[in-house]
Protein backbone atom coordinates (compact mmCIF):
# COMPACT_ATOMS: atom_id res chain seq x y z
CA UNK A 1 0.00 0.00 0.00
CA UNK A 2 1.40 3.37 -1.05
CA UNK A 3 1.90 6.08 1.57
CA UNK A 4 0.28 9.18 0.07
CA UNK A 5 1.58 11.49 2.78
CA UNK A 6 5.18 10.51 2.08
CA UNK A 7 4.61 11.03 -1.62
CA UNK A 8 3.12 14.47 -0.92
CA UNK A 9 5.40 16.00 1.75
CA UNK A 10 7.88 13.27 2.74
CA UNK A 11 6.26 12.70 6.11
CA UNK A 12 6.36 9.12 7.31
CA UNK A 13 8.03 6.50 5.14
CA UNK A 14 7.43 4.41 2.05
CA UNK A 15 10.09 1.88 1.10
CA UNK A 16 9.05 1.63 -2.56
CA UNK A 17 9.13 5.38 -3.16
CA UNK A 18 12.40 5.69 -1.25
CA UNK A 19 13.89 3.02 -3.47
CA UNK A 20 12.79 4.92 -6.57
CA UNK A 21 14.22 8.16 -5.15
CA UNK A 22 17.57 6.56 -4.41
CA UNK A 23 17.77 5.01 -7.86
CA UNK A 24 16.93 8.28 -9.62
CA UNK A 25 19.28 10.39 -7.52
CA UNK A 26 21.92 10.05 -10.25
CA UNK A 27 19.76 12.17 -12.55
CA UNK A 28 19.21 14.94 -10.01
CA UNK A 29 20.04 18.53 -10.92
CA UNK A 30 23.58 19.53 -10.03
CA UNK A 31 24.42 23.15 -9.53
CA UNK A 32 25.81 24.77 -12.65
CA UNK A 33 27.12 28.23 -13.39
CA UNK A 34 24.23 30.42 -14.36
CA UNK A 35 24.25 31.69 -17.95
CA UNK A 36 26.01 34.94 -18.71
CA UNK A 37 23.35 37.59 -19.01
CA UNK A 38 23.30 39.48 -22.30
CA UNK A 39 23.99 42.89 -20.79
CA UNK A 40 27.52 41.80 -19.88
CA UNK A 41 28.34 41.30 -23.55
CA UNK A 42 27.11 44.63 -24.89
CA UNK A 43 30.50 46.38 -24.84
CA UNK A 44 32.07 43.83 -27.20
CA UNK A 45 29.55 44.47 -29.96
CA UNK A 46 29.98 48.24 -29.63
CA UNK A 47 33.74 48.05 -29.89
CA UNK A 48 33.69 45.88 -33.00
CA UNK A 49 31.29 48.09 -34.91
CA UNK A 50 33.29 51.26 -34.19
CA UNK A 51 36.68 49.99 -35.35
CA UNK A 52 36.00 49.37 -39.07
CA UNK A 53 34.25 52.46 -40.37
CA UNK A 54 36.67 55.15 -39.14
CA UNK A 55 39.53 53.23 -40.70
CA UNK A 56 37.68 53.08 -44.01
CA UNK A 57 36.90 56.78 -43.91
CA UNK A 58 40.51 57.60 -43.07
CA UNK A 59 41.75 55.49 -45.96
CA UNK A 60 39.33 57.16 -48.36
CA UNK A 61 40.39 60.58 -47.11
CA UNK A 62 44.06 59.76 -47.56
CA UNK A 63 43.41 58.53 -51.10
CA UNK A 64 41.51 61.71 -51.91
CA UNK A 65 44.35 63.87 -50.61
CA UNK A 66 46.95 62.01 -52.67
CA UNK A 67 44.79 62.15 -55.78
CA UNK A 68 44.09 65.87 -55.46
CA UNK A 69 47.76 66.70 -54.91
CA UNK A 70 48.72 64.68 -57.95
CA UNK A 71 46.05 66.39 -60.02
CA UNK A 72 47.25 69.83 -58.95
CA UNK A 73 50.79 68.90 -59.76
CA UNK A 74 50.00 67.70 -63.28
CA UNK A 75 47.49 70.42 -64.15
CA UNK A 76 49.64 73.41 -63.21
CA UNK A 77 50.63 75.42 -66.34
CA UNK A 78 54.29 75.18 -67.17
CA UNK A 79 54.71 78.94 -67.61
CA UNK A 80 53.06 80.05 -64.41
CA UNK A 81 55.35 82.01 -62.11
CA UNK A 82 56.17 80.25 -58.88
CA UNK A 83 58.41 80.92 -55.94
CA UNK A 84 61.18 78.88 -57.45
CA UNK A 85 61.23 80.85 -60.71
CA UNK A 86 63.70 83.25 -59.29
CA UNK A 87 66.01 80.48 -58.34
CA UNK A 88 65.73 78.94 -61.77
CA UNK A 89 66.19 82.20 -63.62
CA UNK A 90 69.27 83.03 -61.59
CA UNK A 91 71.00 79.98 -62.97
CA UNK A 92 73.10 81.09 -65.93
CA UNK A 93 72.21 79.48 -69.19
CA UNK A 94 74.99 77.44 -70.49
CA UNK A 95 75.62 74.76 -72.95
CA UNK A 96 76.76 71.44 -71.73
CA UNK A 97 78.78 69.29 -74.00
CA UNK A 98 77.15 65.89 -74.01
CA UNK A 99 80.50 64.28 -73.83
CA UNK A 100 80.66 65.39 -70.17
CA UNK A 101 77.36 63.73 -69.27
CA UNK A 102 77.96 60.13 -68.38
CA UNK A 103 75.84 57.58 -70.19
CA UNK A 104 74.97 59.77 -73.20
CA UNK A 105 76.60 58.90 -76.42
CA UNK A 106 76.62 62.09 -78.37
CA UNK A 107 79.06 64.75 -79.25
CA UNK A 108 76.55 67.60 -79.50
CA UNK A 109 75.64 69.94 -76.69
CA UNK A 110 72.30 70.47 -74.92
CA UNK A 111 70.73 73.89 -75.23
CA UNK A 112 68.82 75.00 -72.15
CA UNK A 113 66.25 77.68 -72.72
CA UNK A 114 63.69 79.31 -70.47
CA UNK A 115 60.27 80.63 -71.41
CA UNK A 116 60.11 84.31 -72.33
CA UNK A 117 57.68 85.13 -69.55
CA UNK A 118 60.22 84.47 -66.84
CA UNK A 119 62.43 87.28 -67.94
CA UNK A 120 59.87 89.85 -66.84
CA UNK A 121 60.20 88.88 -63.18
CA UNK A 122 63.91 88.43 -62.71
CA UNK A 123 66.58 90.24 -64.53
CA UNK A 124 69.97 88.74 -64.19
CA UNK A 125 73.14 88.86 -66.09
CA UNK A 126 73.15 86.05 -68.52
CA UNK A 127 75.94 84.45 -70.37
CA UNK A 128 75.93 84.92 -74.12
CA UNK A 129 74.19 82.17 -75.98
CA UNK A 130 76.00 79.96 -78.31
CA UNK A 131 74.13 78.61 -81.21
CA UNK A 132 74.03 74.90 -81.17
CA UNK A 133 72.48 72.24 -83.23
CA UNK A 134 69.39 70.32 -82.04
CA UNK A 135 70.09 67.67 -79.49
CA UNK A 136 69.25 64.08 -80.08
CA UNK A 137 69.27 62.12 -76.91
CA UNK A 138 68.88 58.38 -77.01
CA UNK A 139 67.22 57.14 -73.87
CA UNK A 140 68.47 53.62 -74.12
CA UNK A 141 72.03 54.83 -73.91
CA UNK A 142 71.68 55.43 -70.17
CA UNK A 143 73.70 52.64 -68.81
CA UNK A 144 73.30 51.04 -65.43
CA UNK A 145 76.97 51.51 -64.77
CA UNK A 146 76.43 55.24 -64.02
CA UNK A 147 73.42 55.59 -61.71
CA UNK A 148 74.30 59.15 -60.62
CA UNK A 149 73.45 61.56 -63.40
CA UNK A 150 74.12 65.25 -63.23
CA UNK A 151 70.80 67.06 -63.49
CA UNK A 152 70.15 70.09 -65.59
CA UNK A 153 68.45 73.13 -64.17
CA UNK A 154 65.01 72.13 -65.37
CA UNK A 155 65.40 68.61 -64.09
CA UNK A 156 66.58 69.95 -60.77
CA UNK A 157 63.53 72.20 -60.61
CA UNK A 158 61.22 69.31 -61.39
CA UNK A 159 62.95 67.16 -58.79
CA UNK A 160 62.50 69.85 -56.11
CA UNK A 161 58.82 70.21 -56.97
CA UNK A 162 58.34 66.46 -56.72
CA UNK A 163 60.06 66.33 -53.33
CA UNK A 164 57.89 69.20 -52.11
CA UNK A 165 54.73 67.38 -53.19
CA UNK A 166 55.88 64.17 -51.56
CA UNK A 167 56.66 65.92 -48.28
CA UNK A 168 53.21 67.54 -48.23
CA UNK A 169 51.61 64.19 -48.96
CA UNK A 170 53.58 62.44 -46.24
CA UNK A 171 52.64 65.08 -43.66
CA UNK A 172 48.96 64.69 -44.58
CA UNK A 173 49.26 60.94 -44.31
CA UNK A 174 50.84 61.30 -40.90
CA UNK A 175 47.90 63.41 -39.71
CA UNK A 176 45.49 60.78 -41.00
CA UNK A 177 47.47 57.99 -39.37
CA UNK A 178 47.48 59.81 -36.01
CA UNK A 179 43.72 60.35 -36.25
CA UNK A 180 43.10 56.70 -37.01
CA UNK A 181 45.39 55.61 -34.20
CA UNK A 182 43.55 57.82 -31.75
CA UNK A 183 40.18 56.38 -32.79
CA UNK A 184 41.35 52.79 -32.51
CA UNK A 185 42.67 53.16 -29.00
CA UNK A 186 40.56 50.78 -26.79
CA UNK A 187 40.55 53.15 -23.83
CA UNK A 188 39.19 55.94 -25.97
CA UNK A 189 36.47 53.69 -27.36
CA UNK A 190 35.42 52.61 -23.90
CA UNK A 191 35.38 56.17 -22.62
CA UNK A 192 33.33 57.22 -25.61
CA UNK A 193 30.89 54.38 -24.96
CA UNK A 194 30.51 55.37 -21.33
Amino acid at each position, binding site marked *: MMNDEYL*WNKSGSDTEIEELENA*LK*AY*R*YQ*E*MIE*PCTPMRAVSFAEKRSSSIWPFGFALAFASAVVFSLSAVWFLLPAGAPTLTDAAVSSVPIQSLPLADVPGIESTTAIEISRPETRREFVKTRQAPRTKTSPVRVVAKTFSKKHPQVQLTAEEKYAYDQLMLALSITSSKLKIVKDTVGQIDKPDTAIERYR
Partner: protein
Amino acid sequence: MTTDLFLFARGEREVSPARPEALLVERICQGDDEAFSEFYRMFAPMVHGIVLARVSRNDVDDIIQEVFISAYKNFDSLRDKNAVGGWLAMIARNRATEFFRQSKPTEELAEDVGRTGSSHARAHEILSAIRTCPDAYREPLVMRLVEGMTGPEIAERTGLTPESVRVNLHRGMKLLREKLGIGVK
Protein backbone atom coordinates in the same frame (compact mmCIF):
# COMPACT_ATOMS: atom_id res chain seq x y z
CA MET B 1 -16.65 33.91 -7.84
CA THR B 2 -19.51 36.33 -8.35
CA THR B 3 -18.31 38.40 -5.43
CA ASP B 4 -14.79 38.51 -6.85
CA LEU B 5 -16.05 39.70 -10.21
CA PHE B 6 -18.19 42.35 -8.54
CA LEU B 7 -15.31 43.64 -6.43
CA PHE B 8 -12.95 43.54 -9.42
CA ALA B 9 -15.40 45.59 -11.48
CA ARG B 10 -15.60 48.19 -8.72
CA GLY B 11 -11.84 48.23 -8.35
CA GLU B 12 -12.04 47.21 -4.71
CA ARG B 13 -10.52 43.77 -5.02
CA GLU B 14 -7.33 43.46 -3.02
CA VAL B 15 -4.16 43.13 -5.03
CA SER B 16 -2.24 40.02 -4.00
CA PRO B 17 1.06 40.86 -2.28
CA ALA B 18 4.23 40.40 -4.27
CA ARG B 19 5.79 36.97 -3.85
CA PRO B 20 9.57 36.57 -3.36
CA GLU B 21 10.08 35.51 -6.97
CA ALA B 22 8.15 38.58 -8.16
CA LEU B 23 10.48 40.81 -6.15
CA LEU B 24 13.43 39.03 -7.73
CA VAL B 25 12.04 39.70 -11.19
CA GLU B 26 11.65 43.38 -10.32
CA ARG B 27 15.30 43.54 -9.28
CA ILE B 28 16.39 41.73 -12.46
CA CYS B 29 14.51 44.24 -14.59
CA GLN B 30 16.46 46.97 -12.83
CA GLY B 31 19.73 45.31 -13.88
CA ASP B 32 20.63 43.42 -10.70
CA ASP B 33 22.85 40.48 -11.67
CA GLU B 34 22.85 39.01 -8.19
CA ALA B 35 19.05 38.77 -8.35
CA PHE B 36 19.32 36.80 -11.55
CA SER B 37 21.72 34.34 -9.90
CA GLU B 38 19.28 33.91 -7.03
CA PHE B 39 16.41 33.43 -9.46
CA TYR B 40 18.45 30.81 -11.31
CA ARG B 41 19.18 28.85 -8.14
CA MET B 42 15.52 28.98 -7.16
CA PHE B 43 14.04 27.71 -10.40
CA ALA B 44 16.82 25.58 -11.95
CA PRO B 45 15.64 22.29 -10.34
CA MET B 46 12.11 22.83 -11.64
CA VAL B 47 13.32 23.59 -15.16
CA HIS B 48 15.66 20.63 -14.98
CA GLY B 49 12.78 18.35 -14.05
CA ILE B 50 10.52 19.63 -16.82
CA VAL B 51 13.23 19.24 -19.48
CA LEU B 52 14.45 15.88 -18.20
CA ALA B 53 10.91 14.54 -18.49
CA ARG B 54 11.10 15.10 -22.26
CA VAL B 55 14.66 14.95 -23.63
CA SER B 56 17.75 12.87 -22.98
CA ARG B 57 20.08 13.70 -20.13
CA ASN B 58 22.95 14.84 -22.38
CA ASP B 59 20.93 17.70 -23.86
CA VAL B 60 19.29 18.90 -20.66
CA ASP B 61 22.00 21.32 -19.55
CA ASP B 62 22.08 23.21 -22.85
CA ILE B 63 18.30 23.58 -22.89
CA ILE B 64 18.29 24.87 -19.31
CA GLN B 65 20.72 27.59 -20.30
CA GLU B 66 18.58 28.53 -23.29
CA VAL B 67 15.45 28.67 -21.15
CA PHE B 68 16.98 31.09 -18.67
CA ILE B 69 18.47 33.31 -21.35
CA SER B 70 15.13 33.42 -23.13
CA ALA B 71 13.40 34.31 -19.87
CA TYR B 72 15.94 37.01 -19.16
CA LYS B 73 15.32 38.66 -22.50
CA ASN B 74 11.54 38.62 -22.06
CA PHE B 75 11.09 39.60 -18.41
CA ASP B 76 9.69 42.94 -19.53
CA SER B 77 6.83 41.23 -21.35
CA LEU B 78 5.69 39.45 -18.17
CA ARG B 79 2.58 41.20 -16.90
CA ASP B 80 1.96 39.35 -13.63
CA LYS B 81 5.30 38.96 -11.89
CA ASN B 82 3.72 36.59 -9.34
CA ALA B 83 3.10 34.08 -12.14
CA VAL B 84 6.75 33.89 -13.15
CA GLY B 85 6.98 30.21 -12.15
CA GLY B 86 4.24 29.09 -14.51
CA TRP B 87 5.62 31.36 -17.21
CA LEU B 88 9.11 29.88 -16.87
CA ALA B 89 7.68 26.34 -16.86
CA MET B 90 5.88 27.11 -20.11
CA ILE B 91 9.12 28.36 -21.69
CA ALA B 92 10.87 25.18 -20.57
CA ARG B 93 8.11 22.98 -22.03
CA ASN B 94 8.17 24.82 -25.33
CA ARG B 95 11.97 24.66 -25.60
CA ALA B 96 12.07 20.96 -24.76
CA THR B 97 9.29 20.17 -27.25
CA GLU B 98 10.98 22.24 -29.93
CA PHE B 99 14.27 20.45 -29.33
CA PHE B 100 12.55 17.08 -29.36
CA ARG B 101 10.99 17.84 -32.75
CA GLN B 102 14.22 19.05 -34.33
CA SER B 103 16.49 16.32 -33.02
CA LYS B 104 16.82 12.95 -34.66
CA PRO B 105 15.26 10.05 -32.77
CA THR B 106 17.92 8.48 -30.57
CA GLU B 107 17.91 5.90 -27.85
CA GLU B 108 19.52 6.95 -24.61
CA LEU B 109 21.75 4.31 -23.08
CA ALA B 110 22.74 3.98 -19.48
CA GLU B 111 26.38 4.72 -18.63
CA ASP B 112 27.02 1.07 -17.67
CA VAL B 113 24.92 -0.46 -20.40
CA GLY B 114 26.81 -3.78 -20.40
CA ARG B 115 26.08 -4.62 -16.78
CA THR B 116 22.61 -5.82 -15.87
CA GLY B 117 21.08 -5.18 -12.50
CA SER B 118 23.25 -2.14 -11.70
CA SER B 119 21.87 1.03 -10.14
CA HIS B 120 22.33 3.09 -13.32
CA ALA B 121 20.47 0.56 -15.42
CA ARG B 122 17.66 0.58 -12.90
CA ALA B 123 17.53 4.39 -12.89
CA HIS B 124 17.43 4.42 -16.66
CA GLU B 125 14.58 1.93 -16.64
CA ILE B 126 12.55 3.99 -14.17
CA LEU B 127 13.11 7.25 -16.04
CA SER B 128 12.11 5.64 -19.32
CA ALA B 129 8.91 4.39 -17.69
CA ILE B 130 8.16 7.89 -16.37
CA ARG B 131 8.65 9.35 -19.85
CA THR B 132 5.95 7.09 -21.22
CA CYS B 133 3.39 8.56 -18.82
CA PRO B 134 1.06 11.42 -19.90
CA ASP B 135 2.41 14.98 -19.69
CA ALA B 136 0.33 15.88 -16.64
CA TYR B 137 1.89 13.05 -14.63
CA ARG B 138 5.48 12.91 -15.77
CA GLU B 139 6.49 16.43 -14.70
CA PRO B 140 5.38 16.12 -11.06
CA LEU B 141 6.84 12.61 -10.90
CA VAL B 142 10.26 13.76 -12.11
CA MET B 143 10.24 16.76 -9.78
CA ARG B 144 9.25 14.56 -6.86
CA LEU B 145 11.38 11.45 -7.47
CA VAL B 146 14.40 12.89 -9.31
CA GLU B 147 14.70 16.44 -7.98
CA GLY B 148 13.49 15.56 -4.48
CA MET B 149 10.95 18.39 -4.29
CA THR B 150 7.87 18.01 -2.10
CA GLY B 151 4.33 18.44 -3.39
CA PRO B 152 3.90 21.96 -1.96
CA GLU B 153 7.22 23.02 -3.45
CA ILE B 154 6.18 21.73 -6.87
CA ALA B 155 2.92 23.66 -6.63
CA GLU B 156 4.69 26.83 -5.55
CA ARG B 157 7.31 26.74 -8.30
CA THR B 158 5.07 25.75 -11.19
CA GLY B 159 2.16 27.96 -10.22
CA LEU B 160 -0.26 25.03 -10.18
CA THR B 161 -2.74 24.53 -7.38
CA PRO B 162 -1.66 22.12 -4.62
CA GLU B 163 -4.77 20.04 -5.22
CA SER B 164 -4.00 19.38 -8.87
CA VAL B 165 -0.37 18.58 -8.07
CA ARG B 166 -1.43 16.13 -5.39
CA VAL B 167 -3.89 14.36 -7.70
CA ASN B 168 -1.39 14.16 -10.53
CA LEU B 169 1.30 12.82 -8.22
CA HIS B 170 -1.01 10.14 -6.86
CA ARG B 171 -2.27 9.02 -10.27
CA GLY B 172 1.17 9.23 -11.85
CA MET B 173 2.69 7.13 -9.09
CA LYS B 174 -0.02 4.55 -9.44
CA LEU B 175 0.62 4.36 -13.21
CA LEU B 176 4.37 4.12 -12.69
CA ARG B 177 4.00 1.24 -10.25
CA GLU B 178 1.98 -0.62 -12.81
CA LYS B 179 4.56 -0.03 -15.54
CA LEU B 180 7.42 -1.12 -13.31
CA GLY B 181 5.52 -4.06 -11.83
CA ILE B 182 5.93 -2.76 -8.28
CA GLY B 183 3.45 -4.12 -5.75
CA VAL B 184 1.99 -6.57 -8.28
CA LYS B 185 1.64 -9.97 -6.72
